[in-house]
């Protein structure tokens, strides 16, 4: 039996989520901004047509937004995360296996009979159950499924579904896919391929394997075989174990005082600690950084980072906060307008694999400490993030993220569920 893969990709996912709960946005151009309302991170089809690129600074396109009646919104990750989970749970029972690849993409392993008709049915089901439109590309390998999906997006006549098994001349399609649009090949590798005369997916498929292996290594060889229809990449059903946890955000306004940086860093650290605990992990190493805003050309620039091993592997919030603040004080320089601070926790290992240090019994997290973490996590899950907080995190952060146009958290907060007129 030959393997078949589908890539299911939500169309303009963030904008589509907003439209499910605000039908007035249907047919209108919608742009969604990053944390702090800085850059455009998601665009409805109409905004793409207006030529506003992904990642564009919002202030550079104010005029375009105004002239074309673009609805500009802050990002609402609580909503997108919940809607993503709903899409994935709708897909899951319909495939032999599934890999959640990103917030808006999933690979499915299909049976032989699951072709275009099945994909149309599945697409309609996701639309009906969740309100989210998806595109589905099917192929003999993950790489080809990804390409099939890309083509459905560029070819509206396909109705959002393409099965490469029904395409007579795959090479013709592949010759229109530039190398840096192939999954796993970035701009850098594409330049190297171009040096050898390989400019599109078709040329890569039929290219000299020995040269490709020499130039791109085993990764390139694998991609070539995938383009030839030989599956080399399996579904990854379990998320890969985390190598590190990051928590960093830009401020709503420039921050100068050490106390404010400390509050922000303590808040991000508490969040990172919570993530560690939810994964049953402890960190051995901690990295802290600060940076000014590289876009404020007139201001003096400063950025610095430093790391240190933790005294003992930990996921206990107070341990991590005190370590983080110590590092912050070491790199802080007064007189700068800081834009960002953050923390990376690395060298993560499973909590149960950590041996209590026989010679230094005080170094492990105490039973009491663990209990406090558990209580804090439970309360914050129930009452909302950071309702229970450490004093170091501050009470009334004025540095917090700017989110002026966020829609309601329609599916995760009782007091923000949508209203229907009766």
């Amino acid at each position, binding site marked *: 039996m030959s393997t078949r893969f589908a890539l299911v990709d939500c169309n303009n996912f963030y904008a589509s989520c907003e439209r499910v709960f605000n*039908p*007035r946005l*249907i047919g209108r151009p919608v742009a969604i901004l990053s944390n702090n309302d800085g850059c455009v991170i998601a665009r409805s089809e109409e905004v793409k047509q207006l030529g506003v690129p992904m990642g564009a600074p919002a202030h550079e396109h104010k005029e375009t937004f105004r002239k074309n009646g673009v609805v500009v919104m802050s990002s609402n990750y609580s909503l997108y*995360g*919940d809607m*993503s*989970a*709903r*899409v*994935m*749970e*709708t897909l899951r029972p319909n495939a032999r296996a599934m890999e*959640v*690849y*990103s*917030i808006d993409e999933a690979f499915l392993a299909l049976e032989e009979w699951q072709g275009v008709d099945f994909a149309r049915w599945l697409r309609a089901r996701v639309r*009906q*159950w*969740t*309100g989210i439109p998806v595109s589905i590309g099917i192929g003999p390998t993950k790489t080809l499924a990804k390409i099939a999906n890309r083509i459905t997006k560029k070819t509206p006549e396909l109705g959002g579904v393409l099965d490469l098994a029904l395409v007579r001349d795959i090479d013709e399609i592949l010759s229109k896919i530039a190398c840096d649009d192939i999954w796993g090949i970035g701009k850098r590798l594409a330049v190297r391929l171009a040096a050898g005369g390989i400019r599109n997916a078709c040329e890569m498929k039929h290219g000299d394997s020995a040269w490709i292996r020499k130039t791109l290594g085993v990764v390139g060889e694998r991609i070539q075989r995938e383009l030839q229809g030989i599956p080399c990449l399996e579904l990854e059903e379990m*998320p890969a174990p*985390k*190598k*590190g*946890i*990051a928590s960093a955000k830009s401020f709503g306004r420039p921050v100068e005082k050490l106390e404010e940086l400390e509050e922000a860093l303590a808040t991000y650290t508490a969040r990172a600690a919570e*993530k560690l605990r939810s994964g049953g992990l402890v960190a051995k190493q901690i990295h802290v950084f600060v940076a000014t805003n590289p876009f404020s050309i007139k201001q003096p620039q400063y950025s610095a980072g430093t790391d240190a091993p933790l005294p003992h592997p930990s996921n206990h919030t107070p341990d991590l906060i005190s370590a983080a603040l110590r590092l912050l004080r070491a790199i802080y320089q007064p007189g700068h307008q800081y834009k960002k601070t953050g923390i*990376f926790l690395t060298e993560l290992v499973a909590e149960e694999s950590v041996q209590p240090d026989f010679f230094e019994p005080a170094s492990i997290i105490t039973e009491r400490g663990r209990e406090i973490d558990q209580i804090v996590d439970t309360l914050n899950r129930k009452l909302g993030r950071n309702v229970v907080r450490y004093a170091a995190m501050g009470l009334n952060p004025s540095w917090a993220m700017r989110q002026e146009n966020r829609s309601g958290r*329609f*599916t995760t907060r*009782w007091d923000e*569920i*949508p*209203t*229907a*007129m*009766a």
Partner: protein
Amino acid sequence: MIAENPIPFEARSKLRIPLVSAKVQAGFPSPADDHMERSLDLNEHLVANPAATFFVRVQGDSMRDAGIASGDILIVDRSVEPKDRQIVVAMPEGEFTVKRLCKREGKVFLEAENSAFKPIEVAKNQELVIWGVVTFVIHQA
């Protein structure tokens, strides 16, 4: 860099499962031990399909006679196929509204359950978007 979890899955409902009751040390075990069952979970009763179920708050009293009051919470299941006479959340004019779906003489109406409100007829050329079917109403007693 290091991505967060791709999707924050969270159990929609946590069941409290009483594991053991009687202490082991001394005395007789509780005669109920062999009959322990898990506590009832309202989600099982009210939410047949979590992926497709949403909660919507009611504002207004046009559905009073159907037992739906202002401030009530509707459980809306988008996976249920809307049928004649069902209570639905629809958006006839780009706004959520809760009404009873009625088909009469080849026409489609959204009817209120309160004589003070007129039914809304859905014109033939107008696409009626049914957002979801109301399966339960949560009303504070």
